[in-house]
């Protein structure tokens, strides 16, 4: 409520609302986005403080408690709320530690693909001509493969593992940022403020990075959020296929791969790691929808 009053005051007061408060005003109107934000912050907290939050070690095997069911099912115990896996490790603890991997993967992949994608897209959109054609043809080539297949084959070349999976996923994600940046730069470049800045004597680098780029950020931020959740899904998929993080790493996709043979005997071994992936991805996508509402001027009026 205070935010609404705030904007009402600023309207009468004459000073425009700061960018941040305006952003929060539109973002918070989307209930789902706020819920997504809180869920995400909760997962982030669990990931950072995993050693303090997790009830057990993610790697200690308790040979006496193999495939123990979760607490609400007969035979379960409060010692292992979500039960144990086939070698007696606590599933809840492994999921909490797994959040570290998934968020880390998302962060690294988004950083790598945004930085490289924005730089390449900026060059293509600013210089046009032969450079642009060359860059876009290369992006077409990357996009001609199904992303997961290309990532799978790249990991086969580089060798299975978390780091290589992240590199592969960044590479297949990056053309989206190139295309988006290029399109945004092309629309901005011919606008008066850019021409004015050029006439005033701004150099190429200044025009590219300080004049044009800040005005292209809105769609990039939304795409970065989507890429974050897509990276988590892709990394889990690679882990599931045995080409991502390797056991006994408590990565969620890898946990699912290990649990596959027990699906008929112990449903909880399969259900909870997947649920963790779904909840995390859903929270990020909810935030992405809210960001789009807050940053897209076309939707603000409606």
């Amino acid at each position, binding site marked *: 409520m205070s935010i609404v009053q705030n904007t009402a005051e600023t309207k009468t007061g004459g000073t425009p609302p700061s960018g941040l408060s305006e952003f929060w005003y539109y973002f918070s109107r989307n209930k789902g986005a706020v819920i997504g934000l809180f869920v995400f912050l909760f997962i982030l907290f669990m990931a950072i403080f995993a050693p303090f939050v997790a009830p057990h070690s993610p790697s200690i095997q308790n040979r006496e408690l193999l495939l123990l069911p979760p607490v609400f099912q007969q035979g379960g115990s409060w010692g292992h709320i979500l039960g144990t896996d086939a070698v007696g490790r606590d599933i809840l603890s492994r999921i909490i530690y797994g959040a570290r991997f998934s968020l880390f993967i998302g962060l690294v992949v988004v950083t790598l693909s945004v930085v490289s994608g924005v730089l390449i897209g900026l060059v293509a959109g600013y210089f046009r001509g032969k450079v642009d054609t060359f860059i876009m043809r290369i992006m077409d080539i990357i996009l*001609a*493969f199904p992303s997961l297949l290309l990532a799978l*084959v790249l990991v086969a070349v580089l060798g299975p593992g978390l780091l290589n999976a992240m590199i592969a996923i960044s590479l297949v994600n990056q053309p989206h940022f190139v295309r988006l940046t290029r399109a945004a730069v092309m629309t901005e470049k011919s606008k008066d403020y850019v021409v004015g800045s050029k006439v005033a004597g701004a150099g190429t680098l200044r025009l590219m990075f300080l004049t044009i780029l800040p005005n292209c950020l809105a769609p990039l931020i939304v795409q970065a959020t989507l890429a974050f959740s897509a990276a988590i899904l892709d990394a889990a998929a690679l882990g599931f296929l045995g080409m991502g993080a390797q056991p006994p790493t408590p990565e969620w996709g890898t946990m699912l791969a290990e649990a596959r043979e027990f699906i008929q005997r112990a449903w909880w071994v399969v259900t909870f790691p*997947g649920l963790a992936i*779904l909840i995390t991805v859903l929270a990020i*996508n909810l935030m992405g929808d809210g960001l789009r509402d807050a940053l897209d001027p076309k939707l603000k009026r409606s």
Partner: protein
Amino acid sequence: MFRFIFGRLAVLIPTFLGVSIIAFSFIRLLPGDPVMLMSGERVMSPERHTQIMHQLGLDRPMYVQYFDYLTGLLTGDFGSSIVTKRPVLDDFLQLFPATLELALCAIIVAMVLGIPAGVFAAVKRGTWFDQSIMGVALVGYSMPIFWWGLLLIIFFSGYLGWTPVSGRISAMYFFPPVTGFMLIDSLLSGQTGAFKSAATYLILPTVVLSTIPLAVIARQTRSAMLEVLGEDYVRTARAKGLSPFRVIGVHALRNAMIPVITTIGLQVGVLLAGAILTESIFSWPGIGKWMVDSVFKRDYAVVQGGLMLIAGVIMIVNLVVDLLYGWINPRIRH
């Protein structure tokens, strides 16, 4: 229109060359020696090594090898499997109908459910109906489909015992493949129960593979409809006294479909990527499972050929979508 078609084809040539360079260099980038990889032999005398290098033409300059590879591609030679020695193209053609059947069923389900869901959500904007449809769509969009498949197997195959877990049809039925589509072949065979069996095998993989396209199509249809419903010509149509059904179904939907068709075209890559996971979970004998198995068997000749063929399929589908799009919407031809 002809200029448009030729323009599109001209763009395709460098992409094709680039894709072939990637497929060509893939096998040479792998750690280890291509001879070891291709011959599958672990221990080899240096003389035999040079001999095979020469036999396979690997001692020639790289550009000659690439040119050779390219000529092979254009004459339909995509290499042969290291394990089975069968030509990659033969395996691909044999397995592709299974993937195509699954992908077609999935995209049909996604369209039949997704477009009406999106339209209704847009018309009833802001109601609980809209919110619940969009909530479900967002969950579907966020779904790790390999986990979703496992859950469905636990519930429908394990707990209820309704559907089989893997394969395309019960081993009770046997008939020669005519079209390669199990649903059609089982009907053609005339065996009682064969079609029903094929359908029960198909249903869970279809649900899994259609999940993400369904969510994407529903969301895209809703936002395209919302944009169109605010236009003047929709208001005019309403003012003329046309029935709501005509206004929404004819005047609005036809214009809203243009971005939706683009979205559906873009789902081809999503479907093929999804097929990799779906086919692995349900042991569906299609090209997705074939590629994953080949990566694990280190049958890199198959991976190389398969990469090229799958990229080829995607390029052709994208071209067709582009041409269709130019035909529907003449403005983009220029």
